[in-house]
């Protein structure tokens, strides 16, 4: 028994030694003259992957090509925040020219981990509330980035183009989702200025979306929804109410248009990534992140669905259909 115990100890020690040896044999970054970009994300999903591809595309366009003259590193925490924290620590240790963090928790971990390595966040809805930057001005710190917050005035312009006479705007949302609560608060001040009012319907769970929408029948001229996760995941139940009761539906993500909304002015996440990538290029060229203002997505895409419009009792103007990036038939 004691002998076999020794065998085990030895093999464990060997394993450890081997592991450490290979790890330290990995080429260091700090010494190399070429530029380096490290991208961390909490999880891989279509929108976030599009951001990553956009970043890479923008870097390539500026002449920084991964594997040639750019040390490109990408790590996903595969949904685990503990791993995300470790990825961020590793990146800080690698001292790249810029760390790009996708989504809120990863960005917070990076900002908490370093005050010196430049950090650019991407696809963070409210970087001010997340305390990544003190406000929307240039931060003066090592942090800047691109937010996926939607400018609501543009959303309301679209709403009025689709339903010109709308006075009462219904909104279905999850009161537990910070992003949605922010939108509701902003609409409460914005809509009266445009001569409209907001009627709220809460859907704390995805299964509540249908009944929340039904509670709006007769009380609203149009239903607007943000990118609320509950609503987006149960958008079909909203469409059912819209079609049956002839209430036009305006969404904030382009996928919902394919699922039965009349129109949406949404973010193209690849463009968002490219915008972040262009900001990274400025840093690679020597600018300080503290001198760069955090940006909103500069490019929104309009999707329209004339068939859904017909079912929900409105006709889309030719001009609007022509201006759309994609018309869903």
């Amino acid at each position, binding site marked *: 028994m004691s002998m076999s115990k020794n065998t085990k100890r030895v093999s464990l020690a060997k394993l450890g030694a081997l592991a450490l040896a290979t790890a330290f044999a990995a080429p260091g970054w700090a010494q190399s003259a070429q530029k380096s970009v490290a991208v961390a994300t909490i999880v891989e999903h279509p929108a976030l992957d599009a951001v990553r591809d956009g970043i890479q595309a923008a870097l390539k366009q500026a002449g920084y090509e991964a594997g040639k003259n750019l040390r490109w*590193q990408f790590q996903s925490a595969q949904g*685990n925040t503990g791993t995300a924290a470790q990825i*961020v*620590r*590793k990146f800080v240790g690698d001292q790249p020219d810029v760390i790009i963090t996708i989504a809120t928790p990863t960005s*917070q971990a990076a900002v908490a981990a370093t005050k010196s390595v430049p950090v650019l966040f991407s696809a963070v809805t409210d970087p001010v509330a997340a305390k990544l930057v003190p406000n929307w001005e240039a931060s003066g710190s090592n942090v800047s980035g691109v937010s996926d917050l939607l400018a609501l005035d543009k959303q309301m312009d679209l709403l009025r183009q689709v339903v010109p006479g709308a006075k009462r705007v219904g909104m279905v949302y999850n009161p*537990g*989702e910070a992003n949605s609560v922010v939108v509701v608060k902003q609409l409460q001040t914005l809509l009266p200025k445009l001569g409209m009012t907001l009627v709220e319907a809460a859907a704390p769970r995805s299964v509540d979306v249908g009944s929340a929408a039904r509670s709006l029948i007769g009380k609203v001229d149009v239903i607007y929804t943000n990118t609320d996760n509950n609503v987006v995941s149960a958008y079909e139940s909203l469409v059912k109410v819209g079609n049956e009761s002839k209430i036009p539906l305006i969404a904030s993500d382009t996928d919902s248009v394919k699922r039965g909304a009349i129109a949406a002015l949404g973010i193209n996440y690849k463009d968002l990534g490219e915008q972040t990538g262009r900001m990274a290029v400025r840093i690679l060229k020597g600018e300080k992140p503290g001198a760069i203002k955090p940006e909103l997505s500069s490019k929104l895409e309009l999707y329209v669905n004339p068939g859904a419009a017909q079912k929900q009792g409105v006709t889309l103007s030719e001009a609007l259909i022509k201006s759309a990036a994609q018309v869903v038939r």
Partner: protein
Amino acid sequence: MSIFSLFGALEIGLIFSLVALGVYISFRVLRFPDLTVDGSFPLGGAVCAVLISHGTSPYLASLAAMAAGALAGLLTAWLHVRLRIMDLLASILVMIALYSINLRVMGGPNVPLITEPTLFTLLQPPGLAEHIGRPLLLLAIVIVAKLAMDWFFGTERGLAIRATGSNARMARAQGINTGAMVLLGMAISNALVALAGALFAQTQGGADISMGIGTIVIGLAAVIVGESMLPTRRLVVATLAVVLGAIVYRFFIALALNSEFIGLKAQDLNLVTALLVAVALVIPQLRRRLARRPN
């Protein structure tokens, strides 16, 4: 692997060693399959982050987080002991409920702690880099927790909890109130996990609703890795093994993160981690097989 990466692994490993100690109490000492952990870890983070951002001192906030975790553990144990709901199901119910409760506590999915004071900013020794100071402070906390646990499970009450876990019928025959012991053990277990959540939120710039996902898996993996490294029947050694297991697990992840030079990509991370852990687990089996072989 850079020093930063190593100390980062140590830091996260030390935090999760508190989770592992908690999981050791529920799964090994009490033999209670407790998934509450996935909810009590973010609960600790949420309570701590909200209190700190409202101006409470980080010391009090961390203690409050532990108290909240203890309540969560009590609730699971109460559902099982008093309402006779199956242990696994009771813990699942509390874990699910805690998701909503955590949203309520935080008033949203995320509470940042980037500009606020934390235990780590208050106790940071001057002249020492943050990435070294944090693991040092955590090491002190983990040592205190481990020693306290060793002491407690040697007292009469602690022994009663252990007896409840190893043979409840026998324990009852000795006049032990086994129901109360399950309640107490589960409260301590989840208090430790919530403390880990509070420390995690304070080192990682805030609490997030998603931070609990997979906590139980990591805790269990740490317990099992530790046990296979240092197989023992003595609790004092077992708690040490569990702490080491949590740290070793993190070093495996750090190693997997640094394995790109052999052609591995980001999406392979969990696979590499799993393989490394599997290797660590196979070793004691090989040992046993060798032992069985006649010399």
